């Protein structure tokens, strides 16, 4: 599942005037089709391309990174002929977790689509906001280049496994009502190579990443507070995605996930098959939010409980992008027995609305 993180204001547009824009409803039974589904689905309200992963420098240093592009379709009067009409708005985040400094470097871009400055292509993945870009080449590999004020990522992602459809063949329920859902697939075990520039110095990196692709028109139930999500690449080639949507006031509103075994068979996890148990918390001095940065994830596969302890690379991986109108959340590189991945914690500062 995934994520997120649209500016509070943006999300509210749809809440304020859902009647104006006829958003398509996410329904079960749709078959994913590639490469078209790598590209944008502009009719839906929100969509994202979300890459997270672990990098290793030539010197053997571990780094975590995320590169995310969001697309949203605000609810507007569609008759406005202006070229500036905000029919599609694109956002992007990038962050680099650096254990040597134990802090997160991050940057962002945002623009309304148009004028050749920002665009999300349909038919195949190619999303661009000014100088930031994420695209899929015809040979199937993905590439991104993002430059923030204090770091630059230029990374190639080579798929080693086929896409992993989440939920029922790509239909992923998020809440008690069937339309509270998204179309969702992941590409685990992407082989990474490229360059990271920090403080003016380039280093070559290799690593392993995870791509999440999700689009929806009605993502969060009104009674939802936020979610915990994790995507883990295991050394044996298996991959786990698990999420839970937390209810306002406490408790779990919905949960789900999938485990792809080394053999390639997929165990789909229902709402009762996934549990998250906080092990350690970290309080952000910047926002005051308290995050369960270390958790035990339990899943039930074929009646058998499997557990993984997630340990963060370091605790301070909160991303505070409120200055640019985006929410506060925690997105961090985590380790577990026999694998590594990312943990995402949202709605700990205040409830998300999507």
């Amino acid at each position: 599942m995934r994520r997120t993180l649209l500016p509070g204001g943006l999300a509210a547009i749809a809440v304020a005037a859902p009647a104006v824009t006829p958003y398509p409803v996410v329904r079960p039974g749709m078959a994913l089709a590639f490469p078209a589904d790598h590209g944008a689905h502009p009719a839906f309200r929100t969509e994202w391309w979300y890459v997270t992963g672990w990098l290793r420098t030539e010197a053997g240093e571990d780094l975590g990174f995320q590169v995310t592009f969001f697309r949203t379709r605000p609810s507007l009067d569609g008759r406005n002929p202006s070229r500036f009409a905000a029919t599609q708005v694109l956002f992007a985040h990038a962050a680099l977790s650096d254990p040597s400094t134990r802090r997160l470097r991050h940057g962002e871009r945002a623009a309304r689509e148009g004028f050749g400055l920002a665009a999300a292509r349909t038919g195949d993945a190619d999303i661009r906001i000014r100088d930031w870009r994420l695209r899929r080449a015809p040979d199937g590999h993905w590439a991104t280049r993002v430059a923030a004020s204090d770091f630059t990522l230029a990374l190639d992602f080579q798929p080693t496994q086929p896409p992993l459809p989440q939920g029922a063949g790509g239909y992923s329920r998020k809440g008690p009502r069937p339309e509270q859902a998204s179309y969702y697939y992941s590409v685990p075990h992407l082989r990474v190579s490229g360059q990271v520039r920090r403080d003016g110095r380039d280093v070559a990196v290799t690593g392993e990443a995870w791509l999440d692709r999700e689009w929806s028109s009605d993502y969060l139930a009104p009674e939802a507070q936020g979610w915990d999500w994790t995507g883990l690449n295991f050394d044996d080639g298996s991959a786990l995605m698990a999420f839970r949507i937390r209810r306002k006031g406490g408790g779990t509103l919905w949960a789900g996930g999938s485990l792809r075994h080394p053999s390639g068979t997929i165990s789909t996890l229902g709402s009762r098959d996934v549990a998250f148990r906080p092990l350690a918390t970290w309080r952000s001095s910047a926002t005051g939010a308290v995050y369960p940065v270390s958790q035990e994830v339990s899943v039930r596969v074929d009646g058998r409980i499997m557990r993984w302890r997630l340990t963060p690379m370091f605790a301070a991986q909160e991303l505070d992008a409120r200055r640019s109108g985006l929410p506060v959340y925690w997105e961090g590189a985590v380790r577990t027995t026999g694998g590594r991945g990312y943990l995402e914690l949202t709605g700990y500062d205040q409830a998300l609305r999507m």
Partner: protein
Amino acid sequence: MSAEPGLLSARLALGWLIGGEWRFQPARFLTTAIAIAVGVALGFAVHLVNGSALASFDGAVRGVSGAAELSVRATSPLGVDERLYPRVAGAAGVLDASPMVRLDARIGGAKLTLLGLDVLRAGSVTPSLVGITPRGPDTGNDTVFDEASLFLSRTALAQAHAAVGDRVTVTANGRAVIFHVAGTLPGADAAAALGVVDIAAAQWRFGRLGRIDRIDLRLSDRQAAEASLARLLPADAVLSSEAARGAQGSALSRAYRVNLDMLALVALLTGGFLVYSAQSLAVARRQRTFALLRTLGLSRSGVISAVMVEGVTIGIVGALAGLAGGYGLAWAALHWFGGDLGAGYFGMATTRVVFQPVAAASFFALGLSAAVLGSAIPARAAARAAPAAALKNVGDVLDPRRPALWWPAAVLLAAGAAAALLPAVSGLPLFGFLGMALMLAGGVAGVPWFARTMLRPLAKRTVGSVPSQLAVRHLYGAPAEAATALCGIVASTALMIAMATMVSSFRGAVDTWLGQVLGADLYLRTDAGASFDPATRARLAGTAGVGHLAFSRQLPLTIAADRPPVSLIARPERDGRDPLLVLIERAPTMPTKALPVWVSEPAQRLYGWEPGETITLPLAGGTRFMVAGVWRDYGRQAGAVLVDEADYQRLTGDDGRDEISVMLLPGNEAGAVGKAMAVQLPADLRRHVEITQPATLRHMALTLFDRSFAVTYLLEAVAILVGLAGVAATMSAQTIAREREFGMLRHLGLTRGQLSAMLATEGALVGMTGAVAGIGLGLILAQVLIHVINPQSFNWTMTTQVPVGTLLGVAAALTGAAAATAVLAGRRATAKDAVQSVREDW
């Protein structure tokens, strides 16, 4: 101190001398100190007001511009093609670019600047222009891209009497659109009346599709950005920095401000002359005392320092009082008249007095030096007098048989005239003011010569009454005394007459010009960017009683980023030249293919556009026009260019018109036709159209003119009062000093009535001489004001119109005041017994 005992006692005597003078002549000290105080106060007040007004004006400009480092701005409200935006955003050195639509708008009666912007871009480039919604449990409806949301600055919110959550109707570009006040602009300048909506909404709702007005920039490399943008910008856009915008804002009012500063300095100069008069008289009166001290061992420098100490004291007291008074004046002026002192330069800004320590120190120094310089010359004169002769002689030190020198005056006047002919320095007539100062000094220096030349024929006459003959002989025989009394009068009169002549010439020229340009019977004009569309225009033309309608469009057009925009006027001009256009120069022949443009006189002078020249105007991406003529215009100081309506429409596609001049059919009454035309207007336009008759417009224009010269009138009045006070002070001091002479005359058989008549004649003669000299000098100075200072400051010319009434009044007032004070002072001097008066002699 190792001084000789003699010298020490001389110093003691000096202390007594000054102390005694203070005790027995406090009025003399006070009046001279007041003369300095008035000069300092005026100068400081004018400077403070200007500085404060400019500061708040700057603030308002910054508030609307959101403090972007560099902006691309359209040269006219027609905007620039929006496809420029991606090219600018992609230019080298540009980090981010925020496109913007800018409109003059109103909500009800409140005016505001409406910006249409992309919140994502502005959030990165000019965050102060981005609104947020107050956070609260019930405000889940904030919408940054919502096309009905409006964010208002606090000032705009207050002026529109609106609150967050209200629905308000915003009128701009002739359209009225309902918005929902979604929040405030907490980062915006508190004083700026500002509204922010989405750029797409602004384009769509206010008829600006495809156009933007401004692109604010965030830069990574300013030099690279300036170079790359200079290459890619079209002619109808300019690159503008904050400094250029500040210059643009202050350029219009700069000449006005400098002129006021100069006038205030001139008041200070007059104060200096008054100090000189008063000190000269005091020195003359105490000549015997000084001589006595000299014989007791006081050195020459001791005498000089005695007089100088007095001057410094007067200077310090006067300058300090002046600073306090100036601050008070500035406060009062801002409180009651506003920052532009009524001249209309700083329309919207509300102003507080900003204390300026450097200016205070400068004006203190100026006041002090005026007093010190005014004392220095008399001090030298006192020190030069030979003690023995001075002890015996209390009379005039100037030998009446020696002719008064005329050449120093002539040299100064010639130097002044030469300086006045020099060109302006960066748009300011500094040499003009220098020329005026030199000519003033020359005029004052020539007063002794002038007085003697004028009195010579009278003095040679042997007919007439005894008192009048005595009066004439006295003045002729003691020219230095008369000259000292006169120089203060001449200086203040000359300046006053110069100002009065300039203002009356200017007002006369404006009046005549208004009569010429307001030739139509009725005028209709729109506000808030409303315009008459073609359908409305057709309906208006068909109104009963209407003979002919001329439609015009007026827009600001930026030629250079750091200069205020000129006015672009489009009206039917090509066939059948408009009789209302008063051409002062025209191109000899025009090629038929050339597009004609008529430039106003200020535009010609500012941009050097001469008839017959081909110029490029930033219109429709840059168009070449040929200057067909130059027209007189006192209305638009920043310049104006006039193009034919058809050419304008063809070039820009803009079919809106915002002004109509109406010629009526014979036998129709303007008021009735105006009402009939109003009925023809669409209801929503009617509120934004003002229908006026030429007489009203003319009255309004002249009221505005008088208001902008209100400060000038005030300074003039102060100059007159200071001058008259000077006359009174010098006349009475001189008269009182002549007590023994009066006793002698009484011995010789003159009655007190005859003495009074003598003094009245003397006073009148002095006053008249001063008035004639002052008026003559003033008329010369007026020529500098009219032909040098005005054209160089405001870029318009005019012909001289002498305010004869004012001249006669001033002459009469001076003569009368001098005579009256002489008689009044004479009463005191002649009141004593004649025998006693004479016995004072020894």
